[in-house]
């Protein structure tokens, strides 16, 4: 815990307990974590190990039972709902397994939904160009393939130029080829905007593109691996 200045966010002793008494489930058991600014982090681990729980807490979607989360110097865990909303609005981008696009808005409008309320966003067209979807801008989600929908979701997440981008199994519903296109978009955003990025995946192969690989098991971070030479997603395969 020495490079505090450089950390995008930091977690101390995060515990998350679901239920009470007999049926208590420990989703997280005292997680400490520090992620340096601009890094690409991949989170691996078996199902039920607490990956999503950790990500949701770091992103301000959920609160821990115990422990603290700092975003820069601000303590996220002390925020009320209004500040959490503001935090998500200004500083965080999310991408989920099931895209979560608004079906009644076109690709461009889905992005505009966020840029309309952000402080210093890029143009929706620019964000869509970053993920290579400029030509499909005016299509509705129902007219896009799964991979395209996921790229729209990434464009929507990064259009506000967030400091952090959280992706929970972004390729989970995609075939490997499409998955690589999506990962390329994520990597590009990470490089070009210097966005600290955290990606959850079940796919150990994807770890090769990360600067840092966290291995979770049973609510704890078991292993942290630094990858000196992250490779281009194009070189991945699974």
């Amino acid at each position, binding site marked *: 815990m020495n490079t505090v200045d450089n950390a995008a966010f930091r977690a101390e002793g995060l515990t998350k307990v679901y239920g009470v008494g007999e049926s208590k489930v420990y989703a997280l058991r005292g997680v400490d974590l520090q992620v340096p600014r601009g890094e690409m982090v991949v989170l691996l681990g078996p199902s039920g190990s607490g990956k*999503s729980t950790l990500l*949701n807490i770091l992103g301000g*979607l*959920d609160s821990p039972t115990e422990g603290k989360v700092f975003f820069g110097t601000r303590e996220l865990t002390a925020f009320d*709902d*209004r500040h959490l*909303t*503001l*935090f*998500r*609005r*200004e500083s*965080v981008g*999310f991408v*989920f397994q*099931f895209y*979560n*696009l*608004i*079906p*009644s*808005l076109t690709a461009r*409008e*889905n992005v*505009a*939904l*966020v840029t*309309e*309320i*952000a402080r210093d966003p890029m143009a929706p067209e620019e964000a869509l160009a970053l993920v290579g979807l400029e030509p499909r801008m005016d*299509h*509705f*989600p*129902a*007219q896009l393939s799964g991979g395209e929908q996921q790229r729209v979701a990434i464009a*929507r997440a990064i259009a*506000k130029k967030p400091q952090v981008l959280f992706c*929970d199994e972004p390729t989970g519903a995609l075939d490997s080829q499409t998955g690589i296109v999506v990962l390329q978009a994520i990597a590009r955003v990470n490089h070009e905007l210097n966005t600290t990025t955290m990606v959850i995946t079940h796919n150990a192969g994807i770890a090769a593109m990360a600067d840092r690989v966290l291995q979770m098991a049973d609510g704890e971070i078991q292993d942290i691996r630094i990858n000196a030479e992250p490779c281009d997603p194009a070189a991945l395969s699974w």
Partner: protein
Amino acid sequence: MLIELCKPLDRKLLRDLWAIKGQALAIALVIGCGIGMYIMSRGMLESLQETRNAYYERYRFADLWAPVKRAPDALLEQIATLPGVRRAETRIRAGVILDVEGASAPITGEIQSLPEKPTPHINDIVLRRGRYFDPQHEEEVLALQSFVEAHGLGPGDHLYAILNGTKKKLTITGVVLSPEYVYAISPGEIVPDKKRFGVLWMNREALANAFDLDGAFNEAALLLSPGASEDAVIERLDTLLKRFGATGAYGRKQQISDQFLTNEINQLNTMGRVLPPVFLLVAAFLLNVVINRLIDTEREQIGLLKAFGYSGVSVALHYLKMIGVVTLLGIAIGMVLGLWLGHGLAAMYQDYFKFPFLLFSAPADVYLIAIGASLAVAGTGTVSAVLRATRLEPAVAMVPPPPPDYSRSAAGLERLARWLDQPTRMILRHLYRWPKRAGLTVLGIGMSMGLLIGSSFSLDAMLYMVDISFNVIDRQDVTVNFVEPRNLRAVQDLLHAPGVMAAEPFRAVPVVLRNGQFKRREAIVGLSDNAELSRVVDTALRPVPLPPDGLLLSDKLAELLHVEAGDLLRVEIRTGRRPEVDIPVRGIVKTYMGTAAYMNLDSLNSLLKEDIAITGGYLLVDSQHTDALYRALKNTPVVSGVSLQEQAQNAFYDTLQESLGTFVFFNTLFAGLIAVGVVYNNARISLSERGRELASLRVLGLTRGEVSYILLGELALLTLLALPLGAFLGYALARGLVYSFNTELFRIPLIISPATYGYAVLVVVLAAIGSGLLVRRRIDRLDLISVLKTRE
């Protein structure tokens, strides 16, 4: 505990129901309102009819009344033996001015004769308190209960009456009810005023002495043989009694009390026919929408159940059971509500209609129909949705439906969308994508507003009717009726009475008007040329000058007689020398109450081949001197009746507030419930369908307010769209009601004040805001994480 005992599918049923408990309750309430209304109105209708029939039967309410000037008792024999007559009796009946200690204004009343001893007779009385009069004591009378109690009197108390020109002090020995005065109203008025209309019953001999009718009578009351033709008997009676100054026999249809009672029963009938179906329709619509959406969201589960081997029938049964529970809850609410309202209404009617007993009891078929109708309505509201569910192939059902396609949008909408922010675009596209659902919601809200307008407009209309009747048509303060026709000079006497500022004469002449087969027993009112107080107005409410000859008929009378301006009408005058002449109808005029026929006073008198004579006068009175005038009138022997406009108007407003006010209050409650039911259900279902979308937006950083806007903005827009529709439906309903309330007694004009529209809008908007707030609370508690875990 309970849940553990059930089969898995039933457990799912209970949990599902619990999950939509708010909506289920809203639907049950709407069903309940429909059933409650139905049980109340049908039950009250049946109760009133039952009670009326039993009362009439038991106390031998007459079928016919035949007033004459004076006929010998011996004539009874001939009357009783007329074909079609089952039983006949004679009596003495007269108008009187009453005076009670402490009452300043003169009271109009009637006095009737009774046999010496209490014997079963036609138009029998019900002795409620005290005793029958003693024939030895001429001053002893029985008096109508409502009148006696309104003045705080009872057996042993005294009152005064001017009997045939002599003021007499009378003693009340008994307090009674009579089937002839179930609705105790003074002739020519529209609402009963307990204090200002009294009826007395006196020993026949004593009354005959007072009116110089020894061995004679002035009215016959008859019961008809079963199957006898009323019209035929009337013709025979009129022929027989012609020599004795008969003004024309009449049946129950023209008996004032029965007329009002029948009118009320008909109105109840109309309400019972119109309102409950509206409620049930709305309930059916709500159920349909809820179930359809539920099945949409449960598509995969249904597929799964079928894949596991549950048959289509058991899946259908599952949803039908769910509807069954909601419907049964609605039925239970409706029964309780209906009984409660019914008993309340019966208590109100008991105060309004003087029955010796009035119990609210709805016959079994009312309940059966209510239950059957709601089950049928719930069933049809559900069946198509359930069928759709069972028809799904398991494989198809289990594949999640593709994201809804919004790409086919209207060009106009898209052009508009360019100027709007994304959330507003979402609202518009959502509405455009499901126009039917949006349309039904708008219709549902519109119906509730229509119901509000349709039920509260009658207040406006009644007030307007009274305003026109009292301030445009009949502008006099006091109407005085004489015992006998008097010389025109009597107007001068009236003018000299204290406080009288203006006086105008009138003459009312009993006639029978005939146009071929159509015939009416009426009074022609002769007015002076330059009448300023009681006026005749046309349909545009402009004063109409009286033509030098010929008749002016009220619109309703012209309709009943099927005549138009220019037609000739056969007029059989039933007084004096009883001439029969053909008189042209010169015009049709507007009246909201009664069925009037007007003529120029001079030409009316020349028709009667008499000098100018009058039967009463209209007075304009200085309000400073009313008491002095009242005192004078109470002691004027030639006066048989006095009507006071202001008191009549006040009585009307009081009655209106009491009866219609209560009625409007309940309808407001019901319509408000419908509005809440529709709006809340719509919002809740939208929320459950789009919860995922809304949670995603929250994740993206939209605030609670911004997210709520998408859902509540849609509701607001639908509510806004529903307002003009509601106004239109309200107008249409009011039109229908006006049409069905058009009776001989009064016609309600189709007047809907802006305030009524405003009130309906207010109730609907408040209901929408209330439901919006309820839903908003749920939006605030959206679970952001759970929606991210699952696909649609």
